[in-house]
């Protein structure tokens, strides 16, 4: 039989252990690919930018963003990524975005992430069979043009180191 002090100590240890594990689970695994699904549309009125898209403001005067005046974040996920292991994200329109980290290079002290992406739709030809880009850490690129609910989707893809 366990004495009360020993039981309390065991319980405390267990709590600390679980808490540490939980804390660790809350820390995003890196590197990761962050995928933001943005709906752009043209509406009456001025520019409306989702508060969760502060970095998009600097692009709204450029094409193709210029065609729209309303930008809403529909979904944002951060998926841990490893070289050679594809990660798949199901988009809001049912299509799937697959991203693979092909390699990581060091260029002048900066990491460069070589990515491959594709967008598939079940039962149909791929919307995007292959896209390869090389991007720096936290340098986003966009895949746009998919029609969605009267607007257009912009997928913002960025590697978080």
């Amino acid at each position: 039989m366990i004495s009360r002090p020993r039981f309390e100590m065991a319980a405390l240890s267990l709590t600390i252990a679980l808490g540490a594990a939980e804390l660790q689970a809350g820390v995003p695994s890196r590197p990761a690919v962050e995928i933001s699904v943005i709906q752009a549309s043209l509406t009456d009125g001025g520019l409306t930018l989702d508060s969760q898209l502060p970095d998009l403001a600097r692009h709204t005067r450029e094409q193709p963003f210029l065609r729209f005046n309303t930008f809403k974040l529909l979904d944002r996920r951060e998926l841990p990524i490893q070289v050679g292991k594809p990660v798949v994200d199901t988009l809001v329109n049912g299509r799937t975005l697959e991203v693979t980290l092909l390699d990581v290079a060091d260029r002048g002290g900066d990491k460069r992430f070589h990515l491959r992406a594709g967008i598939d739709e079940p039962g149909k030809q791929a919307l995007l069979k292959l896209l390869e880009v090389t991007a720096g850490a936290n340098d986003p690129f966009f895949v746009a043009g998919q029609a969605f609910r009267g607007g257009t989707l912009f997928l913002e893809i960025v590697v978080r180191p």
Partner: protein
Amino acid sequence: MKTERDDALELMAFADGQLDGEAKERAQRRLETDPLARELVAQMHDVRVKAWLEDAADEQALRGGADHIADAVFVRLGGAAGRSAFFVGRVRRGVALVAALALAAGIPLVGFVRRAFLRAPAPVAAQLDPRVTSLRSSSAGVELDEIDSPSHDVSVFEISGAAGELAANAPPPSSVVIWIDDKPGAP
């Protein structure tokens, strides 16, 4: 004899409804026999291409060097060999058509393709203009290596995050937008 660029300009004017008389008939005959001409006119009716061209024309800072690239593109447009190479795939065609339209309008695509470093297929302008490919040396931002979208047209937009502040000596733009046509009914 007119150059291919003059033909393209005439087709653009036709698409805008600015031609009449002999010029209009000539453009119509061209459309009947030349699929590329038909596609150019169709692209001119695409509101997104129109908007892009208008905005690009407003970007005075992007001007310069158009003639060199335009000549190369329109040389390629002429002749059977060039034509077949021009129609390798829908992706290349989509990019090239936008390029051709922009070039015909006197808008250089240095900014458009500066960082669109396609390996295969390569962009027409980058293939033909060494000045464009020489810009590979830059290491910052996003580099576009390859695109393959056989069933949809693709355009590439370079974005800098500093619209209106672009200048000849400005640092390379930081990112790209890959625009994939997602027309209703597309496969």
